[in-house]
């Protein structure tokens, strides 16, 4: 077992025992239930109720029409709503999980004993990045696919399972990259607030703004747009995914080459 895998084992325990995975899953299930309720369950229930209770018919019919107007009962559109929830709220939650993991360890002095026992900064950093990115992103991808499976039983299915799988993978890659970049920036920037601002703006504002620009398709945040509109052309994902990989690689090289402060005094 290499030192990197020992670090990863330790970080896996950290993630699981700090209940972060539990919180991730609870949020994802809550989003799933919320979106399904809006797009599928409520319109369906109101239709059923309206048949049985005639006196409520007129009001309920109006409600059904309203919900159908805003939440059409088509799977691809329903999944687009769910993607938006993951992209906006869950990604921000993942940033909140990850922006302080390494700075907190530096501040508490927890890195000193491992480093004085032979661990290298790059092992500690890469382990944290891999473990947190994986544990935050895989549940998001799985939940996306589960959403597809559940949604397809209620809603008009206009989305193939293959496309759903690719979109689930894109969701995973998207969240993975966001967390990986957040962790790299958290040891590059001296102030955590800058990390939150940079990543928060990238996740919340850039996808909508950049989509309207001519080169919008060729930047990493296009993955958000792709998922939020349930676009059926997986080839469009290649450039943003490659860019994500390049950004992460460059940031990792920067962190490993420059090294980060292990003791809090150095970060002042």
């Amino acid at each position, binding site marked *: 077992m290499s030192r990197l895998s020992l670090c990863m084992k330790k970080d896996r325990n950290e993630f699981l025992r700090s209940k972060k995975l539990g919180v991730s899953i609870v949020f994802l299930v809550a989003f799933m239930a919320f979106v399904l309720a809006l797009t599928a369950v409520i319109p369906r229930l109101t239709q059923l109720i309206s048949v049985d209770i005639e006196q409520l018919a007129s009001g309920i019919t109006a409600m059904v029409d309203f919900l159908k107007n805003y939440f059409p009962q088509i799977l691809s559109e329903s999944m687009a709503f769910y993607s938006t929830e993951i992209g906006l709220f869950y990604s921000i939650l993942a940033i909140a999980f990850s922006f302080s993991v390494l700075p907190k360890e530096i501040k508490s002095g927890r890195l000193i*004993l491992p480093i004085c026992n*032979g661990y290298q900064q790059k092992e500690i950093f890469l382990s944290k990045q891999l473990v947190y990115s994986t544990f935050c992103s895989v549940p998001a991808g799985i939940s996306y696919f589960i959403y597809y499976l559940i949604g397809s039983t209620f809603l008009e299915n206009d989305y193939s399972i293959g496309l759903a799988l690719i979109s689930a993978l894109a969701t995973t890659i998207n969240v993975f990259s966001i967390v990986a970049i957040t962790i790299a920036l958290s040891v590059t920037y001296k102030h955590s607030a800058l990390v939150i601002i940079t990543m928060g703006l990238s996740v919340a504002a850039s996808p909508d703004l950049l989509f309207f620009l001519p080169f919008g398709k060729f930047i990493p945040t296009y993955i958000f747009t792709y998922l939020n509109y349930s676009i059926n052309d997986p080839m469009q994902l290649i450039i943003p995914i490659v860019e994500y990989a390049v950004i992460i690689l460059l940031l990792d090289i920067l962190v490993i080459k420059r090294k980060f402060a292990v003791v809090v005094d150095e970060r002042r």
Partner: protein
Amino acid sequence: MIFLENVKKEFKGNYVLKGINLNIQDGEVYGLVGRNGAGKTTLLNIIAGISQCSEGTCKVNNEKIPEGGFSYLPDLPSFYDYLSIEEYVEFLLGTDYKGKKEDYIQALEKLNFKTNAKIKSLSRGNRQKLGIYVATMKNPGIVLLDEPTSALDPVGRREVMELIKQLKNGGTTVILSTHILADLEVVCDKIGFLNEGYIANEFDLNSPVLENDCDYELNISGETVDEAFVEKLNSQLVNFTAKKGFGVGNVVCKPKDGVDKNIQQTFLDEISKLTCSISSIKKVSFLNLEELMVEVLTK
């Protein structure tokens, strides 16, 4: 050998260390003393290789100190609280000690640790004991201990002092920073007083100068106090022997064997005949390191 020359450390234009010169021999136990905020932890961080000095040279055995080069127990050690003691020790042992984990676990159990307990359940004193154990478990050549006994009860303190003695007997070089000066008296060969960014004074605890309280300290002005000067003084003194003292320009005069130790007037008569310029005379009457520290740091 640990060698530091003119080591400076600056934080945002403020120099915490202004020019540290240190020379610590192999197998020596060196005590680092200073007031709060004097820069002891900063200096240990630099020697441990987890912080870089802003200026100066810092070498061990003529080589640059590598990142995390030595075993170092920081002040208030911090652990991964969610791990059990066993998991933490396994993690720190790393890959080189594969298969030997059981020996280390048994050693911890002998120290009354429940190795399957989570670290977060340990008291402050036990955390410190665990820290000392993990800092020394690989039998390192150099160990840096920052306030290792601050949270320990008297029995725990004594155990740590015994451990340091064992390390010393095994040839390990130890740098110990503490405010508990009685601990230093027990284990150290040499102590350095860190004050205002410099090593203000160094004392060899094995030196006879500190052994009694009837020496006289002269401060000489206008002369370089070196071996030649001390020899010249000794040729002029009858009942006393001069030695180079601590600090710039200081000479300590000690009564020769058989001379009545209460011969202040004799001493004054003798020094009145010396050819050098003496700016001050005082009786050296340090009773212990604590008085010595107050004397040095408030001078």
